[in-house]
């Protein structure tokens, strides 16, 4: 199975890109123990052999910030992805498996959250919670983005629960929780993995979006906050491309490779999407 996955060019490309990004985020900050929030030069110094990507508006080393910011952004995306996937799977399986009134209530709640624009909930939550650690920001993003996953998981669950092995398990006395964990979840693992990949990507992007609105993580550097300070510092208009393009390109590459990964997994698990 693994080998045939790697036979897919899109999967190979996206997997290598993501591996490279994750390794950079893990190793990068350890190669250089200087504080990324400590100025090393003047305003928008050009890239040089010492300062590879120049400095930003307040003289910080852009490359050093990028190494640290990448990790923060991925961490926030990971927390958001895990939180959203867990809530989505819990609500989706319960709603689909138990059905009836509980299903109506949970799906009603889910649909309401889908209809209210995410940005509105994100902004209001972030405004209300003034001191946002990276963990809290990840949780905020996670609790606003699970409804899609819940809906998809519910659809899967209600079709899976009519299978015979589920009946067999129920007849042999398994409880609701046991059936969901052993007879339902393993059969839709591919969906859950794909949903998680999408949530991860939207988590990273949502962090940057919130940071651009001025609602980024307090007291830490992330790709989004770098973007925001570069925009506020007029990096583009003063021609300091090195202070704004790296994080923009990095965010785009992260999003692109995660989406490509998701679409290659989708084709792998759903042969119907391949051309006949």
């Amino acid at each position, binding site marked *: 199975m693994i080998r045939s996955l790697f036979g897919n060019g899109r999967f190979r490309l996206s997997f290598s890109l993501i591996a490279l990004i994750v390794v950079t985020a893990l190793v990068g900050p350890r190669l250089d123990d200087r504080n990324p929030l400590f100025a090393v030069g003047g305003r928008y110094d050009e890239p040089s052999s010492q300062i590879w990507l120049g400095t930003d508006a307040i003289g910080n080393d852009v490359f050093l910030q990028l190494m640290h910011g990448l990790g923060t952004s991925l961490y926030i995306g990971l927390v958001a992805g895990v939180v959203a996937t867990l809530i989505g799977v819990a609500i989706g399986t319960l709603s689909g498996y138990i059905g009836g009134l509980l299903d109506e209530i949970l799906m*009603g709640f889910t*649909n*309401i*959250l*889908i*209809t*209210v*624009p*995410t*940005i*509105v*909930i994100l*902004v*209001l*939550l972030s*405004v*209300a*919670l*003034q001191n946002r650690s990276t963990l809290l920001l990840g949780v905020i993003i996670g609790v606003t983005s699970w409804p899609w996953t819940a809906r998809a998981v519910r659809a899967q669950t209600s079709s899976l629960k009519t299978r015979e092995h589920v009946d067999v398990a129920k007849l042999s006395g398994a409880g609701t929780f046991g059936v969901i964990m052993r007879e339902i979840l393993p059969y839709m693992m591919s969906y859950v993995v794909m949903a998680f990949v999408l949530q991860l*990507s939207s988590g990273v*992007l949502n962090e*940057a*979006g919130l940071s*651009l*609105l*001025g*609602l980024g993580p307090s007291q830490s550097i992330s790709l989004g906050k770098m*973007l925001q300070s570069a*925009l506020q510092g007029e990096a*583009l*208009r003063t*021609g300091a*491309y090195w202070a*704004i*393009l790296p994080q*923009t*390109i990095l*965010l*785009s590459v992260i*999003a*692109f490779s*995660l*989406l*490509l990964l998701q*679409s290659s997994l989708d084709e792998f698990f759903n042969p*119907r*999407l391949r*051309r*006949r």
Partner: protein
Amino acid sequence: MNPFGRYLLNKLFWYLLAFVAAMALNFFLPRLIPGNPVDAIVSQMAQGGGASGEAMQRVYDTYIVEFGLDKSPLEQFISYLGNLFRGDLGTSLGNYPTSVNSLIGAALPWTLALQLPTILLGWILGNILGALAAYKGGWVDRGAFLGSLAFSSIPYYGLAILLLYTFAVALPWFPTGGAYGFASSPSWTWGFIADAFRHYLLPFLSLLLVVIGGQAIGMRSMAIYELGADYVGYERSLGLREPRIVRGIFRNAMLPQITGLALSIGALAGGALITEIVFSYPGLGTVLFDAIRQNDYPVIQGVTMLITVAVLAANFLVDLTYGLIDPRIRTAHGAGA
């Protein structure tokens, strides 16, 4: 009741619930901020200097009454609802005594001018591109798919920054921001319209490309799915002409795309607001950004409220269209869809 009426009523019920939920969030979340929001703002203003102690006290009292902080939470909520239904969004704290209505009113036309055309045009062009890619296959498909994937996965602000850098800084063809030049002021003259158009093109294009990409991907996979459906083989074996088959396929693939439009409007609105910030476009996104920076809660609440209402209304319109188009809902003989 006929199926269409029932469908509409059901939709209306859910939108109403979503609206109430959003209103409750809008009211309660900013009140979770520890301490009295007015304290923070007044102390901020006092640091700025300028106003005397007595003037500060007057501002403080005005704010307390304005916010209704001297009343119980329930009374506050009721008066909040009352004001809302009268269309009164309150007074800005950051730009006192400008009303939130006039701040939003000045920004709204720019936002609408940016969002409405990009959503409609992007949806139409995206569907055509996706359908073409699915039908033609080969390199057309590969190129269109990878291109669409790239444009739809690049975040709005990312594409905005790349376009801004390429076409306004590296190649100084377009202005670097704003909705019109510093020298001109809004008027219905050709000079101003031409100037505004030059400022409009880059933000417009950056949003349009993202919408096209997203819609093309959806349409492509729907159309590929339909192309492989059994009825297509059946029609072919009956000897139906190709154009007729293709029309049927795309009509079937369109239906989910209409729902897709409804579902993406919220995300689009959010992305467009952030795009405005990149281009310093004087729309709602910029107003929201300034309000967040100044802890201007009435303005934040006003903008989030307006976005919610606009997105819910747009969704409802799309659902209405869907109900009119989908034969299962339209006809009275429908199977209770």
